[in-house]
């Protein structure tokens, strides 16, 4: 075996950054490295939007110009405490996500390791799962009021099921050959779970966490639109009622960008946790 050449190509650190030139060339290098092609479509959409507004193709009440939306953003940040609403939404979504995902992973592992646990929960869960979070919401608001706890609970519920099912499935999919291997290694049950079953199930769990994080963020907008007096979802529906289309668009863009940021961070977390896994790069 040719050990020396392989050793050199092993855990590859990203190749050294290109030599720093002027700020402009550095920016260009960055864009090339970060696949600038992804920026093309947003730029085109912005251009079309700007043209449509400045040519008067659409009434500003229905679609204000990008510049007007940018001004509305500044106004909302400076004098209307957009940050407070933003943080309110973020807090609800984080609490809901962590509570739901935490419970789901714990119960998913328990059900994955024991058929009895699975049999105990699964009929109930399969019924509850099919009642959408939003259908639970009116009842939960009756119990908990219009504040954050009701929204946290609904989001936790919606996060719970995809993560629970994927954790369970991830454990059930563990290669039987690995169980043989554990037996040969004379591992204890606990060692088998910790060193083999849980790592083997991690890819499934990570995918479902990423999916659930996006779901949670989308839901917070709906939940805030339905009840309460703060949060991005509340602002968006209020803006519609007051015909403040520029503010409505600000909220939409912020929601979109935050959703994007959440998804990307989950993606990088997934990459980091699963760095032992090699997939098809495309």
């Amino acid at each position: 075996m040719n050990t020396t050449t392989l050793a050199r190509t092993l855990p590859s650190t990203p190749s050294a950054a290109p030599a720093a030139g002027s700020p402009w060339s550095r920016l260009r290098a960055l864009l090339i490295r970060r696949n600038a092609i992804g920026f093309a479509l947003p730029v085109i959409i912005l251009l079309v939007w700007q043209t449509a507004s400045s040519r008067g193709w659409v009434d500003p009440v229905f679609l204000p110009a990008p510049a007007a939306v940018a001004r509305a953003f500044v106004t909302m940040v400076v004098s209307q405490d957009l940050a407070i609403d933003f943080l309110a939404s973020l807090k609800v979504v984080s609490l809901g996500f962590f509570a739901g995902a935490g419970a789901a992973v714990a119960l998913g592992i328990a059900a994955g390791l024991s058929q009895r646990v699975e049999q105990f929960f699964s009929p109930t869960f399969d019924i509850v799962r099919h009642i959408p979070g939003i259908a639970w919401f009116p009842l939960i608001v009756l119990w908990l009021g219009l504040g954050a706890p009701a929204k946290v609970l609904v989001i936790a519920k919606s996060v719970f099921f995809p993560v629970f099912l994927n954790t369970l499935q991830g454990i059930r999919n563990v290669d039987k050959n690995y169980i043989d291997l554990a037996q040969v290694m004379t591992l204890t049950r606990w060692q088998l779970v910790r060193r083999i079953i849980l790592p083997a199930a991690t890819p499934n769990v990570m995918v479902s966490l990423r999916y659930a994080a996006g779901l949670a963020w989308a839901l917070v907008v709906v939940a805030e639109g339905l009840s309460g007096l703060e949060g991005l979802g509340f602002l968006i529906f209020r803006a519609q009622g007051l015909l403040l289309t520029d503010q409505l668009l600000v909220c939409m863009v912020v929601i979109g960008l935050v959703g994007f940021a959440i998804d990307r961070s989950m993606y990088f977390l997934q990459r980091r946790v699963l760095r032992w896994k090699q997939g098809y790069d495309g």
Partner: protein
Amino acid sequence: MTVDTGRLEVEAVSKSYDTPGRPRLDVLVNASFTVEPGAFVSLVGPSGCGKSTLLRLIAGLDTEYQGQLRLHGERITGTSLARGIVFQDHRLLPWLTLEQNIGLILSNAPLTPEAKAKTIREHIALVGLQGFEHAYPHQLSGGMAQRGAIARGLVSQPELLLLDEPLGALDALTRVRLQEELQRIWRVEGVTMILVTHDVDEAIFLSSKVIVMNANPGRIVRQIDVDLPEPRDRTSTAFAALKREILDSMGERHQAPTLAET
């Protein structure tokens, strides 16, 4: 009970599957042989002859069988670190580095962490994988991964190493190289090895004894002591004659005469 000689004794071992509504499936019928300490024994035969089943029984992965399987005169009742095994797929865990993979088998070994680190290092060196301690399995080639698996099989210092077609999935060149490597390791470590293979050349090249098996039902048809001088020359007439003898007893020559022509 026999006296403790460190010998593996297989006495009239049979294994069958009874599925309701289907005829009884005899995977292995009345297999008997002994393996002396320090020997290299090959089980060779076509697929379905029960050779892998037999190896799983010796490993203790399967404890339901008729007959007697004894090591040191004691019946095998389960897996043990005294019997290492290398599978056809390297079966290194993809989330552990080479070093962690090899170390995992020592989880319950009565060694200090320093002693474990030392023996892991020695076994990585034994299979020539220095420099790859922190590599993940997907970063290793097929042959290197299989070397890793051999190191893992040996690191717990077993008296018996079971090899279940460990070279079957490798390309021809890598396979020949690893056969020589395996032979070297067998000499250096002095561990008893039992190899399952369908490659007759491989069996003759490596073994002190070849056990020939056949299918329908799975059974042992011949046991041949190999006393060719070492290093063995795969192209010598004696080698070819022995190969012909083995293929004959498998009944291969009548069905596929070309196989025996070397």
